């Protein structure tokens, strides 16, 4: 059995919607309950996340944006820019602690206190860009973790595998021209689903051309299509790129029961994806995988998929 870090903080529940909203604290309550009852948290390395250093956040986000976000929370704004990204007075701190959670997961793996990590954090991050929050996301947790590994642990090349059903436009933009971070995203086709980006010819720019890879899935696609894409598209790209660490933007909203999208992935699909990423990590980067929670809005499938995901990370 592998040592898998469990990153969670009760303060993650403080960021809660002022109106009915799918991205709610109940998601994490359900996850911790379920994994606790399954006896899995007892078998993980419990790590309490800390607030990140300013420099670690500023490696991704603009100071002006952080100020704007902090002011909006303090002023009592209910939303940030667009109506779907809500705020309460805790949101700024919780967003920092969420990014801090991704850092803690990365740190545990980099320093060897764990082989892998699962970061049960929120708010999610992959839609957030350097100067903008959107799509329920305030700070880009995965991007902050990638930059942290490069700045503090001498990591050169990072692979981000984003299997949230939505395209991670924020993460893509942050690393668009950066050849040291490979961004792979599999998601529902942008014609049908938010945010409307992530078409197959978006492959990076300038020096980063070739280190962005998008696999849009037609509505109705499921386990078989995901398997083919991982084996035939992701795997050869990873062979060429040779990452030193793999981060997973682990959303579970591609599940057939999730209300926010139109894909048909099942528990077995998430088992396959986790197993495949673990195998790639074992082959290329000493097994180092840091999994960071993104979306997933239907409690029953969210928790059953995460249980499978964690069991696969444990290689029990």
């Amino acid at each position, binding site marked *: 059995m592998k040592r898998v870090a469990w990153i969670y903080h009760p303060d993650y529940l403080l960021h809660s919607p002022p109106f*009915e*909203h*799918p991205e709610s604290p109940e998601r994490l309550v359900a996850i911790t309950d379920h994994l606790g009852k399954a006896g899995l948290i007892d078998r993980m390395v419990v790590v309490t996340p800390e607030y990140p250093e300013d420099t670690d956040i500023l490696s991704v986000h603009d100071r002006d944006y952080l100020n704007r976000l902090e002011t909006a929370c303090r002023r009592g704004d209910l939303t940030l820019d*667009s*109506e*779907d990204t809500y705020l309460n007075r805790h949101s700024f701190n919780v967003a920092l602690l969420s990014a801090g959670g991704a850092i803690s997961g990365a740190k545990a793996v980099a320093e060897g206190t764990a082989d892998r990590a699962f970061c049960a954090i929120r708010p999610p991050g992959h*839609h957030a860009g350097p100067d903008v929050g*959107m*799509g*329920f996301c305030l700070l880009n947790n995965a991007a902050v973790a990638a930059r942290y590994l490069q700045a503090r642990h001498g990591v050169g090349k990072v692979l981000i595998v984003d299997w949230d059903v*939505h395209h991670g*436009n924020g993460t893509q933009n942050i690393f668009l021209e950066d050849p040291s971070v490979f961004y792979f995203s599999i998601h529902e086709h942008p*014609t*049908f*689903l*938010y*945010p*409307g*980006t992530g078409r197959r010819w978006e492959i990076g720019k300038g020096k980063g051309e070739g280190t962005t890879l998008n696999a849009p899935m*037609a*509505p*109705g696609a499921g386990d078989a299509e995901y398997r083919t894409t991982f084996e035939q598209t992701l795997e050869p790209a990873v062979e060429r790129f040779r990452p030193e660490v793999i981060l997973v933007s682990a959303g579970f909203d591609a599940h057939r029961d999730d*209300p*926010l999208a*139109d894909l*048909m992935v099942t528990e077995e699909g998430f088992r396959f994806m986790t197993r495949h990423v673990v195998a790639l990590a074992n082959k290329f980067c000493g097994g180092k995988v840091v999994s960071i929670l993104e979306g997933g809005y239907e409690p029953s499938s969210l928790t059953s998929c995460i249980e499978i995901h964690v069991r696969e990370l444990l290689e029990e």
Partner: protein
Amino acid sequence: MFVARRMKKKIVTAAPSASLFEAQRQMREHTIRQIPVVSEDGTLVGIVSDRDIRAAVLPTDMVPGFTIGEAEKFMKNTPVERVMTRKVVTATLSDTLEDAIVLLHDFRVNALPVVDAAGKVAGIITRTDVLEAFIDALGVGEISSRLEVVVPDMPGTLAQLTAIISSFHVNITSVLSTRHVDIGKRSNFFRVATLNVGPIRKAIEEAGFEILDPSKFLLP
């Protein structure tokens, strides 16, 4: 929208006496496929395309013993007025973008020189410009989600739908309404600036409209 809004105003033109060689050089330099030919006072007299030039050179090319040097000499000695199309399909400054789209389609041309009332060339509008206008109109690339709603073909349904969407304080970034395959129905496509389309879909269904399931799009 009028073509003037979408046409290229800085354009390359050629005099009737310009050589094919010079016209081809200009096309390569500016990555364009056709050049309006204008008289000294700017009046449109024809249009020459890369295909016209290739077609003119090709027959001489097939003469046995004809060298590249001779082909170049031929191109340098042949004025564009010898090969240009004289009956040019044009748009006028007062034509709309829809006019231009129909002209490009019905006359099977790649570009329309846009002429003013005096017959002078004011710009050019190409298939690419029209596609760009469509990309904008469809809201492709804007951060948004898509909804497809099938409605009875009767007045007021679009207003009902936009009222529902606006009750969620969500911006609509694009609207498209087309005929549906079923007679008596229309398909309305919206792009809305939110990730959270679930509640909007639900409200639309509760109001009695049919939301099309995207996964059904693939079925024949």
